[in-house]
């Protein structure tokens, strides 16, 4: 198929970017979206033009590297699908496709489609773990975990840290990302001792960074490629409320 692409080109963080139009004549419907961009980049290189920079690694929907707003939607039109797993069979001959980076204050553009998402690591640093040192663990069967909690914890733990939730949110809030981690650990017995402090510390951290507040818009869960449900945000709020009532404070 033939496609017209309009791609955000921005040289670096200090320069202004713009949409640039490219034409591709021979796109196969079995190509992935990134393979289509590979073809564009091969062409640009041979034409002596700077290829489009974009983050990617696994191309299997699991590392969370790829991050593009496609026709206005983070990760594009297919539900529960990362950019790298989106295939061209979902587009038609003659389409014009807009490709832009995540747009959020907390994720500044570095170049073209590449943004800086290191704020997510800082949120995890503020409490997204169980404080257990290597070598100090009891036997794995010492603490049974009921299957339903284990499965629900797993579902929340599948967050890939891509940041689509932030990009989709009109406030640029990282609530769904933070809630996914709080839910994962909060559902397991291993996560209980730090449950209250974890929730308030992580929330305090995200507020301190450039993320916006959550006003229950729900756009995050709509675009999340891993289907993290909006309900996890209520869970986070519940943990924060419980923590505050019990007098815990962020440290």
């Amino acid at each position, binding site marked *: 198929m033939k496609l017209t692409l309009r791609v955000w080109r921005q040289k670096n963080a200090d320069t202004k970017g713009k949409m640039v139009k490219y034409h591709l004549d021979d796109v196969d419907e079995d190509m992935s979206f990134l393979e289509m961009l590979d073809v564009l980049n091969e062409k640009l290189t041979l034409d002596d033009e700077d290829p489009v*920079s974009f983050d990617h690694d696994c191309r299997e929907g699991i590392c969370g590297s790829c991050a593009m707003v496609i026709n206005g939607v983070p990760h594009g039109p297919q539900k529960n699908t990362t950019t790298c797993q989106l295939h061209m069979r979902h587009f038609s001959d003659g389409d014009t496709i807009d490709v832009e980076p995540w747009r959020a204050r907390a994720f500044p553009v570095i170049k073209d489609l*590449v943004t800086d998402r290191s704020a997510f690591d800082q949120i995890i640093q503020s409490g997204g773990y169980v404080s257990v040192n290597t070598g100090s663990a009891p036997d794995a069967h010492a603490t049974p975990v009921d*299957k339903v909690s284990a499965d629900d914890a797993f579902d929340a733990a599948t967050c890939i840290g891509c940041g689509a939730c932030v990009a989709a949110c009109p406030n640029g809030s990282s609530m769904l990302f933070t809630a996914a981690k709080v839910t994962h650990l909060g559902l397991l017995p291993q996560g209980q001792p730090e449950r209250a402090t974890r929730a308030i510390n992580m929330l305090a951290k995200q507020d301190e960074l450039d993320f916006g507040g959550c006003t229950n818009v729900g756009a995050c869960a709509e675009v999340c490629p891993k289907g993290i449900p909006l309900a996890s945000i209520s869970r986070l709020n519940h943990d924060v409320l419980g923590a505050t009532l019990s007098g815990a404070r962020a440290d």
Partner: protein
Amino acid sequence: MSELQQEPTATQGEGRYALGEPIADDRSPDSPIGDRWDDRKFSARLVNPANRRKMSVIVVGTGLAGGAAAATLGEAGYHVKSFCFQDTPRRAHSIAAQGGINAAKNYRNDGDSVHRLFYDTVKGGDFRSRESNVHRLAENSLNIIDQCVAQGVPFAREYSGLLDTRSFGGTQVSRTFYARGQTGQQLLLGAYSALERQVAAGTVEMHPRTEMLDLIVVDGRARGIVTRNVLTGEIETYTADTVVLCTGGYGNVYYLSTNAKGSNVTAAWRAHRRGALFANPCYTQIHPTCIPVSGDYQSKLTLMSESLRNDGRVWVPKERGDQRPPNEIPEDERDYYLERQYPAFGNLVPRDIASRAAKNMCDAEYGVGPGGLGVYLDFSDAIERLGRHAVEAKYGNLFEMYQRITGDDPYQVPMRIYPAIHYTMGGLWVDYDLRSTIPGLFVGGEANFSDHGANRLGASALMQGLSDGYFILPTTVADYLADAPFEPVGDDHPAVVEAVESTRERIDKLLSANGNRTVDSFHRELGQLVWDQCGMARSKEGLEKALDRIPSLREEFWRDVKIVGTGDGLNQSLEKAGRVADFMELAELMCLDALHREESCGGHFRVEHQTEDGEAARDDENFSYVAAWEWGGDGHGGRPTLHKEDLDFSYVHPSQRSYK
């Protein structure tokens, strides 16, 4: 390392390499095998906690091995500098592992034990691994599961609340722990959270988007690395008392593989050029169940987890070139060839055997799909037996992934699969302490030549990465640091200046070629060549052909590669070019290693060496050794030198592997 400079015999690639002194793993204690690791831990020196902060460790790589090592060394109080090329440590390639992680917990009481896991791994590796290391791996497997559960890794559980397990290829017990089809992700996020906890505690300094381009060796000791900041292009140096490489495998030498796009050999290869021996480079693993190639734009291959072979049945039509859709081919016109050829293990034979069987079927023109390069993996029986719901619970995300990529629904039609490069058993040579031949340089995870011999069993890489990272490196690195801190190394030290200058020169040379071909076009050509001649089946003739072609391809690459832009900022073509340049050198050593190893074992199948019924024919008399190669220098005069480490089997008697 001094050389004897003997000429190898004519059958083993005459004139292409020299024979050096044998090497020995001199750190494995002599005690009975079950006591060795305890003895080594006891003899390892300890560092006073008050002094640890003054001692620094560079850990390159944040996958399971590097992430776990950096976190644990940080917890112990050392000053750790951690590096990865991705934008965050959580995206290391380990994240993509699907099927599971082995441990000899024997929770099912099905006859498993440390000894059985040890035995299965040595046998699975086709008797080309080191007994001491494998035994330790099996011992550590127990603690790994405990550690991960304590971190909150949400493994699959049964209704009893206890951990669930599944079976993997090459074993008859159920010892694979899993988190749906995303075990690597969950284990890595566990290690990542431990790492970030140490970043917050100030013991670990994290350097993402930073690529190691050279190793700094001062007075014979590894003391630092040269890096390029991927965002600014700045060439920087970091020094420390010791350097640990956990930089993953080199499967991307084939261009198409199941590895993440960024996976590369550069860190290991640069260390090799600085004196670290590279062991068994020709031992590469081809995974039997991957989604076949769909076109020449293909950028990577996607694995369908081996766990699928628990319930999926592999078949091809009995009739050559049968064009009917699979669902219209009646039961008695299907050849379930694995069940037929290997009745004891059936669809669960080890990977090398399953891959070769698929290739043989396709070579004999029974293959299905475009180009006849595919076989069916069919779940209809399992769906009938267990119900769609149960199949979905086990494999749901894999089925979805398959459908997303191919557009076909595996609940309705069988999957089409074909083997693909997946893992590399070869890597930097290490002793029992995971020390390379450069003092102060440790290597963990897939980057070392590892515990898997000539073939790795499924679900054992995650186990090895975490065993190295959580348990072995923290002990052996500490032992080495008992002699530290060493004299600080300044930026003006001649070794540092030389390493920085040669890194700059390479980058300038790549940028100034300004030729006519893209980096990917060279990478594809190299990959195809290595796949054809040093892939699933290898021959003397083909390997010699490759060895003649690679140097000229390399020369063309340096002359004709085209990279747009400069080195001063983010330039992804430049990053790729540096990696491809190193793959070009590695490929030659792989082919040489494959040519010299005149036997078939595990993933290394030489067509000249097979039994009557087409199985690998090992030659224990002549090849029961690790081939550790010393860098021969640039140019045509430089020949690598082969150092052999003899393998000794006192606990598992080498036999022909039989899965019939």
